[in-house]
């Protein structure tokens, strides 16, 4: 047996040789190798063999490259020729893919933005928010809270070595005054370690020391511009007034960049928490949850393992508080929530610092993006396979000349990739122009100069490759399988299997489109329902003016009289909470006949006179509040029907019963209708409206007659300024603010509508292309039919029938699916529309009408064509 050359080297050499040569040279090499082994030893022989491998490599590589480039050039040439020859077909494909890819990119930006909240902080990956469940305290439908007790952060850091940093902050609106300017602004009050966890960009000042002094304030860049313009703000004095009226002088010690849009909380300034009212009290109070607590775990510490220590923490500290030692069942449970997850996993939490995002929306839009892209891909598949007849000859000739099936697959795939590359190019241009529109619609910053990020280009390239391969795979495998003998010998027919698959794809496209359309009609109707439904409050022409100035409230009666003198003002009242969102809940109630174990969670709204009348709240029993019957020593209460049902009274027996909230003794004077005092995704909870005309409220409420509102408002401002000169004046219309409760839904709803229409549009483009091609194919048949006596209507019917049948089937399929999906979506709303069959009829008519229009566009042309022209041409 002869010595054998190294296996790997031999294998490589086999690959590197040209097909016909390797059989002999390899044999020669083996023989020579054997000779070398016997003469010069194995080592030298091996070295020689490997040298041969290296020698062959370069020529083989260039050879391979040269020929694949040559082939690719040919593919490209053919592809461009085809694009050019069939302009309308190319147009349909490229525009469809452009729109599809643009939607995909835009939605991609949105999703990327949603998933990257708060990730800009240095330690965001190991920072967690401590959240709290209060088992016996359900508020707005949930007993989980984003807030915890103030001592939490410091105690955690002390007790657990795993905790590297621990900090808390609170968020509130206070009045800031600098020189002559005063404004109400959102800001946060923080403890010492805040800046170690939350790493913002500091323009001025030192992040480590700027907030150590209790009398320091750090402003955001835009706040600096508002307060000081272009002046250097460092060292300037700002007077901060807390809601309770306490004013503190602060010195500007730093300037930070505005918090990025993808932060789950925003602020205009940062102050040290020590000057906040009740700071000392809260510092050791475990029963009062009012701060956001964050901890950064040391590297390598598992959050899951650390979480297991939290129950002990609750019993040790929280349980020691006076409140919880009396009611051990109410002891809170704690849990950790990753900083990066806060934005998308907080919808069940109360007191989020901002409206959290919803992971369901992310999924929904991801699905829409994929659907739109698939619809565009299906267009390409259908049009290419439909046109396969035209290109069958080319395939046949290529095969006869010697193309393998794999070569043809490559060719058709590269054509599809070329089209999708053209598509992505168009899509990027489209995205650049439409990004601002979508930024407003999503209310997110979508583009972070993506143009200059290489990731974006890589992703786009990869995306168009994937899309090209998906769209091109079916046509490529279908066409490369055609048998050359059959193609070249005779005229092959379209193939039944092929058209069945095409019909299935069309049905798929239109079913999905119809589902989207029905869903967007449902969304539209539901949102419209939310906006227009009667909530039991008349918000028309009601103006709210927030004011916390005790000076004003001390003289409210005088102010009221003054305001009523203004010609445009019809009624004046006051309230402590926003009339469209009364959100203060309490368990501190007592009522006549109350048992020891009775407990009632009830929303409370202290209001002034005329509140009921101004908002047209219906009294179903008893009387409204009345200035004539008002007694300073006793509170009057109005309960809603939900409240008396919970207590167990009937309407009749409720009136006159004694009732108290927070120890304010009084009696129920009447029962009001169940009106919606929160947003419509909440069902109506028990509510007590308490008459407190003489205490400090937060809102001045005005009802105007709607005539010359600007003049009226100017007079109102003048009057208010007289009573509260130092407090910033602002106003809003109740109706506008009510509608703004549904802003998010509204925006997402309209986005959903746009994307559905785009999907329908792309699907119709595909139908259009298909119809064009088929009517072209049948030109001669139509001509002969006309000669034989068919009229235009008959021919139209002939051409349209098949397509409309497909659309009809799609519609039937879509009904149960969209019924089911819409049902799920509507479940989230406490107040929702019924699914009216008319919705499906309307959606069906729209899809059908548009499809008919699309198809007829061409078939009419074909049907009207002069048979002489169509038959004579060959």
């Amino acid at each position, binding site marked *: 047996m002869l010595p054998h050359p190294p296996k790997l080297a031999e294998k490589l050499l086999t690959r590197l040789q040209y097909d016909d040569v390797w059989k*002999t*040279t390899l044999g020669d*090499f083996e023989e*020579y190798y054997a000779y070398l082994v016997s003469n010069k030893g194995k080592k030298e022989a091996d070295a020689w063999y490997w040298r041969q491998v290296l020698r062959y490599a370069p020529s083989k590589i260039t050879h391979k490259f040269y020929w694949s480039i040559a082939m690719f050039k040919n593919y490209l040439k053919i592809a461009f020729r085809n694009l050019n020859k069939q302009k309308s077909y190319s147009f349909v494909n490229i525009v469809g893919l452009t729109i599809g890819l643009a939607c995909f990119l835009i939605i991609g930006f949105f999703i990327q933005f949603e998933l990257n909240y708060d990730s800009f902080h240095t330690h965001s990956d190991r920072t967690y928010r401590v959240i709290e469940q209060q088992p016996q305290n359900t508020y707005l439908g949930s007993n989980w809270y984003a807030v915890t007790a103030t001592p939490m952060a410091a105690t955690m850091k002390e007790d657990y070595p795993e905790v590297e940093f621990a900090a808390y902050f609170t968020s509130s609106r206070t009045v800031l005054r600098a020189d002559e300017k005063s404004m109400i602004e959102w800001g946060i009050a923080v403890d010492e370690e805040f800046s170690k966890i939350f790493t913002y960009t500091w323009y001025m000042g030192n992040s480590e020391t700027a907030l150590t002094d209790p009398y320091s304030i750090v402003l955001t860049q835009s706040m600096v511009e508002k307060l000081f313009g272009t002046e250097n703000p460092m060292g300037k004095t700002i007077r901060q007034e807390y809601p309770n009226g306490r004013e503190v002088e602060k010195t500007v010690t730093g300037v930070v960049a505005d918090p990025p849009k993808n932060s789950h909380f925003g602020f205009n300034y940062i102050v040290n928490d020590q000057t906040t009212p009740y700071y000392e009290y809260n510092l050791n109070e475990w029963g009062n949850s009012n701060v956001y607590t964050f901890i950064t775990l040391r590297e390598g510490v598992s959050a899951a393992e650390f979480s297991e220590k939290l129950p002990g923490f609750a019993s040790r500290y929280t349980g020691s508080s006076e409140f919880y030692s009396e009611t051990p069942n109410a002891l809170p449970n704690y849990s950790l929530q990753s900083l990066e997850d806060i934005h998308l996993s907080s919808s069940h939490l109360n007191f989020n610092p901002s409206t959290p995002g919803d992971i369901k929306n992310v999924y929904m839009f991801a699905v829409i993006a994929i659907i739109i892209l698939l619809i565009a891909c299906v267009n390409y598949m259908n049009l290419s396979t439909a046109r396969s007849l035209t290109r069958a000859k080319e395939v046949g000739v290529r095969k006869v000349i010697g193309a393998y099936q794999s070569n043809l697959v490559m060719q058709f795939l590269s054509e599809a990739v070329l089209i999708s590359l053209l598509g992505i190019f168009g899509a990027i241009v489209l995205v650049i122009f439409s990004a601002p529109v979508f930024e407003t619609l999503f209310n997110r910053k979508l583009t972070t100069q993506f143009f200059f990020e290489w990731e974006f280009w890589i992703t786009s390239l990869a995306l168009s490759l994937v899309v090209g391969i998906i769209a091109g795979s079916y046509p490529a495998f279908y066409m490369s399988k055609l048998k050359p003998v059959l193609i070249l010998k005779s005229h092959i027919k379209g193939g039944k299997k092929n058209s069945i698959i095409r019909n299935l794809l069309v049905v798929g496209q239109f079913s999905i489109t119809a589902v989207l359309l029905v869903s967007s009609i449902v969304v539209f109707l539901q949102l419209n329902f939310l906006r227009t439904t009667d909530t039991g409050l008349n918000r028309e022409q009601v103006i709210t003016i927030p004011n916390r100035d005790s000076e004003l409230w001390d003289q409210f009666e005088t102010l009221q009289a003054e305001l009523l003198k203004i010609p445009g003002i019809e009624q004046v009242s006051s309230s402590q909470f926003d009339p469209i969102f009364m959100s203060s809940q309490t368990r501190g109630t007592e009522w006549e006949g109350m048992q020891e174990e009775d407990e009632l969670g009830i929303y409370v709204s202290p209001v002034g006179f005329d509140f009921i009348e101004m908002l047209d709240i219906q009294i179903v029993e008893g009387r409204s509040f009345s200035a004539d019957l008002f007694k300073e020593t006793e509170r009057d209460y109005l309960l809603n029907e939900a409240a008396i049902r919970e207590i167990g009274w009937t309407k009749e027996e409720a009136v006159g019963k004694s009732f108290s909230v927070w120890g304010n003794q009084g009696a129920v004077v009447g029962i009001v209708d169940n009106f919606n005092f929160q947003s419509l995704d909440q069902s109506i909870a028990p509510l007590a409206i308490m008459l407190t005309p003489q205490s400090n409220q937060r809102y001045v409420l005005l009802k105007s007659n709607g005539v010359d509102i600007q003049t009226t408002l100017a007079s109102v401002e003048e009057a208010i300024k007289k009573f509260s000169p130092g407090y910033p004046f602002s106003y809003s219309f109740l109706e506008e603010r009510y509608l703004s409760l549904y802003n998010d839904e509204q925006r997402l709803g309209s986005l959903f509508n746009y994307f559905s229409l785009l999907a329908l549009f792309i699907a119709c483009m595909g139908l259009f292309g298909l119809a064009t091609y088929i009517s072209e194919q049948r030109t001669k048949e139509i001509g002969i039919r006309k000669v034989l006596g068919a009229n235009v209507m008959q021919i139209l019917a002939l051409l349209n029938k098949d397509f409309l049948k497909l659309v009809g089937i799609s519609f039937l399929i879509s009904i149960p699916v969209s019924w089911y999906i819409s049902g799920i979506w509507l479940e989230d709303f406490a107040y929702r529309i019924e699914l009216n069959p008319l919705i499906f009829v309307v959606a069906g008519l729209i899809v059908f009408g548009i499809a008919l229009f699309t198809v007829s566009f061409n078939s009419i042309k074909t049907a009207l064509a002069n048979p002489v022209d169509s038959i004579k041409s060959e």
Partner: protein
Amino acid sequence: MKLLTRAEEYILLAVFKLDENAYSIPIQEKLSELTEKEWSLGGIYMPLERLEKRGYLSSSLSESTPERGGRHKRIYALTRDGKTALRHAYEVQQSMWSGVPQLMFGAS
């Protein structure tokens, strides 16, 4: 007629002498043996290929043999043109050398 180079001439001669066994390895061995200098395998592939292209050699694949791992040999054979070229080379050589040995090395 274009003159053969010395290497080409030797290779053609080697092919002729080896007859049925004229494939790369024996050719290389023969050349090394006769010229007393090592010829590399690569150094004879190129001239072999060139000579075949010029029509002086023809080649055929042999049956595969077990000792080469079942691989074929490419067996070369001299064509008529090849023989003519060799003869021409020989004649040129003869006339070039005629008379020289007596003058240069003395009478033989």
